């Protein structure tokens, strides 16, 4: 099914989404990847405040190319989510409701999403120019010294994503993998 959704992605908005659904998202999301997740993890360990308001937040694993002319940012496609697996459950426990990236994730991420009624979405990997067209505003809000890995607040309009893991734990990648002919896996 196809849906048009606006942030905040509250649990009741995410409840009916199923693995394989196509979603166009508008509103505010936050970009953070490897280095920013490490810093946030360290901040949590030190009981320091985080730069992102976590409640019902959507985090997009992305580090853009520099903005040219009057564009808000450059190419902005997803990075591989599994590198952020280690830091994701604690963010989901603290209120993050949606994570956006690409690629397979550890099983414990599914457990954490189910526990917290969250959803994992994928944006099309490699479609950085196309996806940048759906980002109308971009502001660095933390860790500016990290350059492309700084935390950004992004305004998105009709940002296209596919539900990979829904809040019931169904996983689209697992479904695709279950159909691989067995003789290819020997």
């Amino acid at each position, binding site marked *: 099914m196809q849906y048009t959704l606006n942030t905040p992605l509250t649990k009741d908005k995410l409840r009916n989404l199923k693995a*394989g659904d*196509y979603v166009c998202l508008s509103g505010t999301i936050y970009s953070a990847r490897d*280095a920013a997740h490490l810093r946030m993890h360290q901040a949590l360990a030190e009981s320091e405040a985080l730069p992102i308001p976590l409640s019902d937040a959507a985090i997009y694993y*992305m*580090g*853009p*190319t*520099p*903005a*040219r002319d009057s*564009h808000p940012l*450059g*190419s*902005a*496609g997803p*990075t*591989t989510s*599994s590198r952020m697996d280690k830091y994701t459950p604690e963010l989901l426990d603290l209120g993050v409701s949606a994570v956006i990236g*690409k*690629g*397979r994730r550890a099983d414990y991420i599914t457990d954490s999403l189910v526990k917290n009624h969250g959803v994992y979405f*994928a944006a*099309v*990997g*490699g*479609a*950085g*120019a*196309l996806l*940048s*067209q759906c980002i109308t505003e971009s502001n660095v809000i933390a860790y500016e010294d*990290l*350059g*492309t*890995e700084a935390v950004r607040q992004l305004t998105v309009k009709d940002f*296209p994503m*596919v539900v990979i893991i829904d809040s019931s734990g169904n996983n*689209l*990648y697992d*479904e*695709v*993998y279950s*159909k*691989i*002919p067995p003789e*290819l*896996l*020997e």
Partner: protein
Amino acid sequence: MENLRIIHTETIRETVKQLFCDANYFLTEDMRQAICQAEASETSDLGRKILGDMQDNLRIAGEQLIPICQDTGMAVVFLEIGQDVHISSGDLTEAVNQGVREAYTEGYLRKSVVSDPLLRTNTNDNTPAVIHMKIVPGTQITIHAAPKGFGSENMSRLFMLKPADGLEGVKKAILSTALNAGPNACPPFVIGVGIGGDFEKAAILSKFALAREAGSHSDKPHIARLETELLESINRSGIGPAGLGGRNTALAVHIETYPTHIAGLPVAVNMCCHVCRHRTAVI
């Protein structure tokens, strides 16, 4: 000193800069064709949509000068230097790095390199490049620029097989690497394979194989057959575009070989995504 040709490092710097800019904004025609043909042959509705998005992406990238993918890669450069060339006015390695530096700073490309793998401070100019040099006969320098994104690079593998593992062992190594990569390496893939040599030779062969024209075959019949069989097997997996299901999981498998030790059968599998970037210039 007959036939000695002088090439200035300035020319090398400028050529490297241009190649990395072009590579990140425009895919070569062979890759564009391969993606277009994949869309035409795709049976999954979602798969066809994804391949359509990928082509829209290429168009927008070229029209608006936004890099095709935000991972503008670590700069990999292959240089074939004619042995009758004298390189003047500076250090060759520095000239290549300066070209990369200028491409990535002036060309609005991402700075994705850290100076130490453990300390991880960004170098802020995407240098140093990974440079492979070879001396060849003649008076020219051929420069291959191949920016490499790490989504796919991280799914690459190297196997030190036993000779007894044979052809079946080789197929299994390549197939298992591709299936394990799945959505992480942004399919449909281009897969570069190096078979033979030693540990690092196999790896370098596999990276060089990625820069071949998409879908081109080895001139060794038994290797060309292997390339075709593997492409067919990988596409039978149904992993599809972006790993969301479909018949286009790989666009091409390119295999390079080299003689090897009597006790060895190294197989290096360098995964590349559908944004397989390579540009060549001859000076």
